C-alpha cells in the first residue's frame, strides 16, 4: 500500500494514502494479535499474519503474470492458500527457529519500507517546499450584470472533434455536432484543447488562463501533477459564479481532481472510495474471490465504478436541473473515456466482450451512448422559453488516446490533431457571441463571463501545447502551427 503511494507520487497526496494505510496497519495489528492468541505466541501470529497480508495485498500484483502461465482465478487462489497453510504449519511447528524467522521477516519488511520511504520523503519534502501556485486573478463583473441564467458545463472526457474521431477511429457519421448546431449551439469546426491531458486542460479552462504560471512556479523539470490539479480544486470560474449568487453543483467521477472541488456547494459523486483506494481494492485478493464465488462484490471493481459512476452522473444531472435557484453545474463525465463498459444502448458490456472487440467499435459504442444521453439532457435543459434557458457548454477536455488505453506520444501533426482535437459546443442564449472556428477551450468562460457578466476578459490566443515527456510536464511546447499545418 505504501508502495502504491510511492509509485504514484506525481498524482497522489499524503492525505489520499493516509486513511487506507492507517486502516491496513490497524487491521494487520489486530490480525497479528488474534493469531498470536490462537497460536499462543505473538511471533507465530506475526509470521502467519505476514503471509495473509502479503497474500491479500500482493495477489493483484502477480495475478497478471500467473494468468499468463494459464492459471485462472481458482488456481491462483489455491496457490496462495497453500502458501498461507504451509506458513501456518511451519509457524506452528517452529520453535528454535522462531526468533530468526521473525528477524528475517522484520528485515524483509524494513527493507521494503525503507525503499518506499527513500522515494516518498525527498519527493514530499520538495513538494512541501514549493511555493504555492499562483491562482488566476479574480474576475470583476460589470455592476449591472445579472444574466439570471443557469450555467451548465458538461465535460465528456476524450470526446474528440469530428476531425479527431475520423483520423483516429474513421468515424464519419457522428451526428451530434450537427444536432447541436440545429438547436442553436455554436460548434467551432476546428476546436482544440489547450493541453493533451485532463488536469491541464480543465485547469486552463476553469481558470481562463494558459498554464505558464506552472512553468514559472513549479519549474520545467517536474512530474508533479498535483500543482495543476490544485488549480481545478479552487478554480476561478466557480469562485466568480459563487460571488454572483450562483449555487455550485459539482458532479464528479472516480477521477480525483474533479471529484472533490473544495469550493462547490454540493459535490455529487458515486461511492466513497477515491481513485487510489479503488485501484488498491482491485489489487487485493477480494475481486478474485468474488469472481470464483460468482457473487456480486459489495466492493465494486474499477469497471463497476466506471459504469455505475457514469450512470449516477447522468441521473444527478437530470435531478439537479430541476433544483430551484440560480445554479452552476459542472459535470465531468468519463465518456467516451475507457474502460469500455457500455454497449451503444447503454446496457452493460462485460470485460470479456470488451477484450475481444476492436477499439474503434468500442469507442463508437461509448460515443453512441454518450450522444443519446447528451440529447436527452439538452432536450430537458432547452425545453423552456428562450428567455429562461440556461447557458450550456458541452466540451471534451481532449481528444481520444492514440493507442488503446495508452497515450503513445508522438511528435507528429497527426498525433497532435487527434489528441488535442476536442468537442466544443456552446449554447449562448440571448447574446450574439463570435466563436472562431479555431476556438480553444481556455476561452470558453472568457466568452461566457464577458458576454453575460460584462467582465473585461478579452480572448486569449488560441494556442495548444504539448510537453516532451512525463518528467517535464510543465515544459510546454507550442504546437499550434504544427496542428494547423497538418490539416492543410
Amino acid at each position, binding site marked *: 500500500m505504501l*508502495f*502504491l503511494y510511492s*509509485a*504514484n507520487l506525481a*498524482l*497522489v497526496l499524503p492525505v489520499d494514502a493516509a486513511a487506507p494505510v492507517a486502516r491496513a496497519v490497524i487491521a494487520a495489528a489486530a490480525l497479528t494479535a488474534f493469531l498470536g492468541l490462537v497460536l499462543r505466541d505473538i511471533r507465530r501470529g506475526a509470521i502467519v499474519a505476514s503471509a495473509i497480508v502479503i497474500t491479500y495485498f*500482493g495477489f*493483484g*500484483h*502477480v*495475478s*497478471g503474470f500467473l*494468468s499468463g502461465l494459464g492459471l485462472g482465478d481458482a488456481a491462483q487462489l489455491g496457490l496462495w492458500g497453500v502458501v498461507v497453510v504451509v506458513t501456518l504449519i511451519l509457524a506452528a511447528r517452529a520453535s*528454535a*527457529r522462531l526468533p*530468526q*524467522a521473525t*528477524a*528475517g*521477516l522484520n*528485515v*524483509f*519488511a524494513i*527493507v*521494503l519500507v525503507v*525503499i*518506499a520511504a527513500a522515494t516518498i520523503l525527498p519527493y514530499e519534502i520538495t513538494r512541501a517546499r514549493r511555493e504555492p501556485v499562483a491562482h488566476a486573478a479574480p474576475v470583476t463583473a460589470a455592476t449591472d450584470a445579472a444574466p439570471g441564467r443557469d450555467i451548465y458545463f458538461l465535460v465528456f472526457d476524450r470526446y474528440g472533434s469530428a476531425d479527431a474521431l475520423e483520423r483516429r477511429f474513421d468515424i464519419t457519421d457522428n451526428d451530434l455536432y450537427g444536432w447541436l448546431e440545429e438547436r442553436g449551439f455554436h460548434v467551432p469546426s476546428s476546436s482544440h484543447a489547450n493541453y493533451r491531458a485532463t488536469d491541464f486542460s480543465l485547469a486552463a479552462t476553469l481558470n481562463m488562463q494558459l498554464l505558464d504560471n506552472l512553468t514559472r512556479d513549479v519549474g520545467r523539470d517536474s512530474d508533479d501533477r498535483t500543482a495543476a490539479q490544485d488549480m481545478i480544486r479552487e478554480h476561478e470560474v466557480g469562485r466568480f459564479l459563487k460571488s454572483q449568487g450562483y449555487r455550485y453543483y459539482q458532479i464528479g467521477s*472516480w*477521477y*480525483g481532481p474533479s471529484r472533490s472541488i473544495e469550493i462547490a456547494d454540493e459535490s455529487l459523486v458515486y461511492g466513497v472510495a477515491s*481513485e*487510489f483506494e*479503488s*485501484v488498491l481494492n*482491485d*489489487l487485493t485478493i477480494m*475481486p478474485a474471490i468474488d469472481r470464483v464465488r460468482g457473487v456480486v462484490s459489495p466492493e465494486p*471493481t*474499477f*469497471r463497476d465504478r*466506471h459504469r455505475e459512476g457514469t450512470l449516477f452522473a447522468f441521473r444527478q444531472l437530470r435531478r439537479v436541473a430541476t433544483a430551484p435557484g440560480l445554479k452552476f453545474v459542472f459535470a465531468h463525465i468519463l465518456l467516451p473515456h*475507457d*474502460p469500455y463498459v457500455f454497449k451503444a444502448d447503454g446496457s452493460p458490456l462485460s*470485460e470479456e466482450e470488451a477484450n475481444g472487440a476492436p477499439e474503434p467499435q468500442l469507442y463508437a459504442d461509448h460515443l453512441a451512448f454518450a450522444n443519446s444521453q447528451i440529447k436527452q439532457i439538452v432536450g430537458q435543459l432547452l425545453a423552456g422559453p428562450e428567455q429562461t434557458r440556461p447557458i450550456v457548454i458541452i466540451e471534451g477536455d481532449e481528444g481520444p488516446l492514440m493507442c488503446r*488505453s495508452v497515450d503513445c506520444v508522438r511528435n507528429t501533426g497527426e498525433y497532435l490533431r487527434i489528441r488535442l482535437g476536442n468537442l466544443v459546443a456552446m449554447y449562448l442564449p440571448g447574446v450574439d457571441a463570435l466563436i472562431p472556428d479555431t476556438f480553444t477551450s481556455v476561452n470558453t468562460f472568457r466568452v461566457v463571463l464577458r458576454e453575460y457578466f460584462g467582465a473585461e476578459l478579452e480572448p486569449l490566443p488560441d494556442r495548444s501545447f504539448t510537453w516532451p515527456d512525463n518528467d517535464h510536464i510543465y515544459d510546454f511546447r507550442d504546437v499550434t502551427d504544427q496542428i494547423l499545418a497538418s490539416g492543410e
Partner: protein
Amino acid sequence: MSPFLAYIDPGSGSLIIQAAIAAVIAIPIFFRSQIARAMRALRRSEEREPPSGDDAATKH
C-alpha cells in the same frame, strides 16, 4: 486480472523487484542458523582434507 485504466499505476513490476531485493537481504537472516551450520560443516571438511603433495613436499 482486470486491466487498470485509472490514472493510478499499480507498479507491479517495481514492487516485485523491490520485494526481490528485500528477500535477498532477508534470506541470510531467515536461514542464519542453517547457513552457519553449513559453514561449520564446510570448515570441518576442509580441516579433515589431507595436505596436497606440493604442500607436503615443502615441509620436508
